[in-house]
């Protein structure tokens, strides 16, 4: 198969993609992506407030991908363990898109959690965050379910997500985050 690279380029150009990555998500990779994005945000001379918001949300999105790599068993092939990430900026709005495989049995739980977060007002999100922070069990990796609440709180937007069935074992989970100025 020959990929039409111009078509690919054109789509990325039209969506003003600043950075994208597909593959295995490692700690070193995240360090590099964050460094690149930080210098890009500096070059764009974003207000410190926006820069911090974008950076913070980016950290949560990328670390979500990182922590959920392990959920897909290591014996799975590289394709299944792989994830995708893109960040772009159109008309003063940053868009972060992530995609990763998820085990079918975990879809309903995650879907419910995201839907519940989307029902909450700004004030309710603050209370929910504090409740999970204070009472929630901490997972071994330290995620503890705060990431999505934090993203919803910082962006002030509903979480826009989708699950596409892949096969009998996996679905593909995608998340589209908007950060407006």
């Amino acid at each position: 198969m020959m990929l039409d690279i111009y078509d690919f380029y054109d789509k990325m150009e039209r969506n003003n993609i600043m950075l994208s990555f597909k593959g295995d998500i490692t700690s070193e990779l995240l360090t590099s992506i964050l460094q690149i994005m930080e210098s890009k945000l500096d070059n764009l001379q974003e207000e410190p407030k926006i820069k911090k918001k974008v950076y913070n949300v980016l950290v949560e999105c990328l670390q979500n991908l990182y922590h959920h790599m392990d959920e897909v068993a290591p014996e799975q092939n590289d394709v299944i363990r792989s994830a995708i990430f893109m960040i772009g900026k159109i008309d003063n709005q940053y868009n972060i898109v992530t995609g990763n495989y998820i085990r079918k049995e975990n879809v309903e739980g995650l879907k419910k959690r995201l839907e519940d977060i989307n029902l909450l007002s700004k004030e309710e999100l603050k209370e929910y965050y504090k409740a999970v922070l204070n009472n929630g069990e901490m997972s071994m990796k330290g995620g503890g379910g705060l990431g999505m609440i934090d993203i919803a709180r910082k962006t002030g937007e509903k979480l826009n997500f989708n699950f596409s069935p892949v096969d009998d074992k996996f679905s593909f989970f995608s998340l589209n985050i908007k950060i407006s100025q």
Partner: protein
Amino acid sequence: METISIEGTPKTPTITFDTGKGFLEIKGRSIPENSIEFYKPLVDWLEKYAGKPQAATNVNIQLEYFNTSSSKCILDVFKKLEAINKNGSAVVINWFYEEDDEDMLEAGEDYQAIINVPFKMVQVAE
């Protein structure tokens, strides 16, 4: 009494803990993937310090960024400080935030609402 310190990295903060002066500072960024591992030594030092604290303990938290994984560990640190405060050392937590960084100010207020220790919100220039 000793001074304990951890040098900062692009993903982890600089930690200084002068047990003789009762001064603890966490400064920089706290965005490691595994924050439990990172904060474990600090939680242990606080545990030790709690046995023989100074009359007053001053804590400066000056973070540019922190992830949600760190937020639970920071809460654990504050819970240790809460216990130290209860056992006779007057603890004050100074929470620094940059002008216009409402998210950081709000994060400090979240902790203030949970932890029973006096907080001072300190605004600094960008």
